[in-house]
């Protein structure tokens, strides 16, 4: 008999069904992936399994867990199951952990509540569990507060709390979405390692994660189950058009994107830029060290690295949003100097930025019309209001939105629409350089493809040069001509797309590539290529900043910072760049 059997489950809010007649089952120790785009009802299903839906939700159908009916079950019944027999890990551990309780106490509560241990045995088991999920010095970390841990460590604690009672079913609701790829790889590996006989329901939008970690998968579209089956067979021959759509939209790190070469004239030169901030206690925190970059018209250069690598600070300094401490940037022969307010109008027109979160990048009190029109108002004040409106409509058309969107407010747009409006705002002035700061990170697969296609088209039509900041190497591979890899604010490798992905020269680059989950279930997931997380910028390691995490580390790496130098076409900062072979 199955461990969990869901039959005809429907969840409605005011007669709108978010989950519609969903049926599936999970066997003992099985791993099942639940995939779909945002709004497809994945998380609602997870909450229903735990009886955690808000009161307004009306739930019908049946959820049987090991013989117990969960739909309409009393709080008492649910309480006996939650944490004890069904564990859950949410996307954001900071939300899920109580900031006022030491983590040891939060884990203790589960054991105490379900009478799984007594006396001193309780603390011992908690410490043992913390050690199993990879917290170094678990005995000390037992007394840590959630805010004292890094994001990856917090997610490990969440995993510990979900598994400490040895439940029969573990639900992971996008458990690694908020983490860096390198940390994601570690967490997924850990999940496999310590799950033992616990069945897994893994909710994710990332088909790479499903391919590597789930035996079966379920595909949801707008609350309906459209496809189900063994992961390998669904990847090989999808049973439903939506599954095919999701698969096609999944970026592939294992395939090269074929871009026409960029042959335009050099347009932007950035030379040895440094950025530093004053941290608490007047300590200087240097976010970017001597990073150089050049850009041609019609070219896309990607800037990649884990969070804290200085990607955003670097471009913000070039744009004049934060002060540049050293170095210079030259655009079309003229220097880019000082804060953005003091720069020439033409420079401000030609360099545009697109943000990660389109919702916060659009003023909630302005209509789409005025959001896009405002740039025109500033740069072409002579324009009649009618001509301005025409230009706005034209820009909206360019991003595939009709003129019915003119009067919408940002909160009336979906994430993808909002990002397109933000792009239209940037493109309406006809910029020469477009900087995309994680511009597609928050978007669903199919929408991301549309937005990327749009950027590519703008590039073909107008010779737009693009700096594309991303943590997602699969996307970077598809759309960039050249790639710059940053680590702790330093350039570690700069290379053209083809050679970077076929023969990376820096161990960090290779690790980043290996960490990306490949949406192909036939390939076994690689072991997590990097241990640990990025050290604090306030206390950078001696010598090569990457040495504590590098598996090729030698004595010189600990003492001497490697200068960036040219190694067969690539620009690499590693002592052994020409000795170790990192080819894929």
């Amino acid at each position, binding site marked *: 008999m199955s461990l969990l059997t869901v039959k005809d489950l429907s969840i409605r809010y005011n007669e709108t069904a978010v989950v519609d007649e969903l049926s599936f089952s999970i066997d003992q120790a099985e791993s099942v992936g639940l995939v779909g785009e945002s709004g497809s009802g994945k998380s609602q299903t997870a909450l229903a399994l735990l009886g955690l839906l808000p009161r307004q939700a009306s739930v019908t159908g049946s959820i049987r867990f090991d013989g117990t009916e969960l739909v309409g079950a009393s709080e008492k019944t649910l309480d006996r199951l939650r944490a004890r027999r069904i564990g859950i890990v949410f996307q954001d551990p900071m939300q899920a952990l109580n900031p006022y309780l030491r983590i040891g106490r939060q884990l203790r509560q589960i054991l105490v509540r379900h009478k799984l241990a007594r006396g001193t045995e309780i603390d011992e088991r908690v410490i043992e569990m913390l050690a199993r999920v990879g917290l170094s010095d678990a005995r000390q970390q037992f007394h840590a507060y959630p805010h004292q841990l890094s994001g990856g460590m917090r997610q490990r604690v969440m995993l510990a709390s979900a598994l400490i009672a040895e439940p029969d079913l573990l639900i992971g609701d996008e458990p690694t979405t908020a983490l860096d790829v390198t940390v994601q790889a570690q967490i997924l590996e850990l999940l496999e390692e310590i799950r033992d006989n616990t069945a897994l329901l893994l909710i994710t939008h990332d088909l790479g994660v499903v391919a590597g970690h789930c035996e079966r998968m379920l595909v949801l579209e707008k609350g309906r189950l459209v496809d189900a089956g063994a992961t390998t067979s669904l990847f090989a021959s999808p049973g439903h058009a939506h599954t095919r759509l999701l698969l096609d939209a999944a970026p592939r790190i294992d395939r090269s994107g074929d871009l026409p070469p960029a042959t335009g004239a050099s347009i932007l030169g950035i030379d040895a830029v440094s950025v530093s901030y004053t941290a608490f206690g007047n300590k200087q925190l240097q976010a970017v060290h001597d990073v150089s970059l050049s850009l041609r018209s019609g070219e896309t250069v990607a800037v990649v690295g884990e969070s804290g690598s200085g990607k955003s600070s670097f471009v913000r300094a070039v744009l004049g949003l934060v002060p540049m401490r050293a170095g210079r940037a030259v655009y079309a022969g003229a220097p880019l100097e000082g804060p953005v307010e003091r720069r020439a109008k033409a420079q*401000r027109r030609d360099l545009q930025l697109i943000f990660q979160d389109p919702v*916060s990048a659009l003023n909630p*009190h302005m209509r789409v019309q005025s959001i896009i029109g405002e*740039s025109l108002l*500033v740069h072409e004040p002579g324009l009649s209001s009618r001509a301005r409106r025409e230009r706005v409509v034209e820009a909206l058309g360019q991003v595939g939105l009709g003129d019915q969107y003119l009067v919408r407010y940002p909160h009336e747009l979906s994430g993808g629409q909002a990002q397109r409006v933000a792009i239209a705002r940037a493109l309406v002035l006809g910029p020469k350089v477009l900087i995309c700061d994680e511009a597609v990170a928050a978007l669903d697969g199919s929408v991301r493809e549309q937005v990327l296609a749009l950027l590519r088209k703008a590039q073909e039509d107008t010779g737009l040069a693009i700096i594309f900041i991303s943590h997602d190497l699969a996307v970077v591979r598809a759309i960039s001509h050249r790639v710059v890899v940053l680590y702790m604010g330093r350039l570690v490798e700069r290379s053209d797309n083809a050679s970077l992905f076929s023969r990376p020269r820096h161990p960090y680059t290779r690790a980043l590539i290996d960490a990306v989950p490949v949406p192909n279930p036939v390939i076994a997931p690689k072991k997590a290529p990097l241990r640990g997380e990025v050290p604090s910028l306030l206390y950078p390691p001696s010598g090569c900043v990457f040495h504590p995490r590098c598996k090729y580390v030698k004595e010189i790496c600990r003492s001497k910072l490697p200068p960036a130098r040219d190694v067969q076409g690539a620009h690499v900062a590693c002592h052994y760049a020409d000795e170790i072979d990192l080819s894929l």
Partner: protein
Amino acid sequence: MSLFDNRTIRVSGGILLTVAACALAGPWISPHDYLATDFDSQLLSPTMTGGQIFGTDDLGRDLFVRTMLGIRVTLLVAIVASLVSLIIGVAYGAIAGFVGGRVDAAMMRFVDTLYALPFIFFVILLMVAFERNFLLIFVAIGAVNWLDMARIVRGQTLSLREREFVDAARLTGVSTTRILLHHIAPNLIGIVVVYVTLTIPQAILVESFLSFLGLGVQEPQTSLGALVDAGVNQMEGASWALLIPAGLLALILLCFNFLGDGLRDFFDVRHTN
């Protein structure tokens, strides 16, 4: 969603409008005069005859007309004082928050310093030192209230300034003035409106308190606080002289508080959707 779909706003707003309308029209309709003393009809209990529905006070003056007049004064003081605090507070807070850095630090330390002064004591001193002047009450109450407003607006501006749409506007070349007026200000409206409706009852309370102490509005003018003060003296024989103005004062305060709550919900809904 319209403002009037919210029941709290509809009911409390409706009551306030009715009270204000009565206060404006009442003295005009009533045959009695707020000044006219009548020693033949001292401390009459409320009666329908002759239109003295609230009775009379110890000088035989019609209490309905006087109460309505008191409401006018009370509301006027409250609204003008709130406007004073609104204008000073929003301008001060928005500038401090937007400019930031040292200017912000200096401006906010000044506010902190003013906070440290015992204001009621300060107002009482003002009243005693200068002639008891109607205008002074507005100034005194406004001067107390703008500090809170400045702090709230400054905090809000500070967080708005960090929002990406402000960066986007800066990058495009939108002028600082335009950013303040078109990007910051509209996003402040919600919180400011809510806060003003909560400032009004505070101002009413301060005014009533001053008048009750005899430091506020002076005879023959009156306010709800002054009427309560007079009513207390007649409490045993003529309870209506206390209960009616005190009840109306409570009603007005409650309505403003509910209105503020309702507006807060209203603006919340628009932000979360």
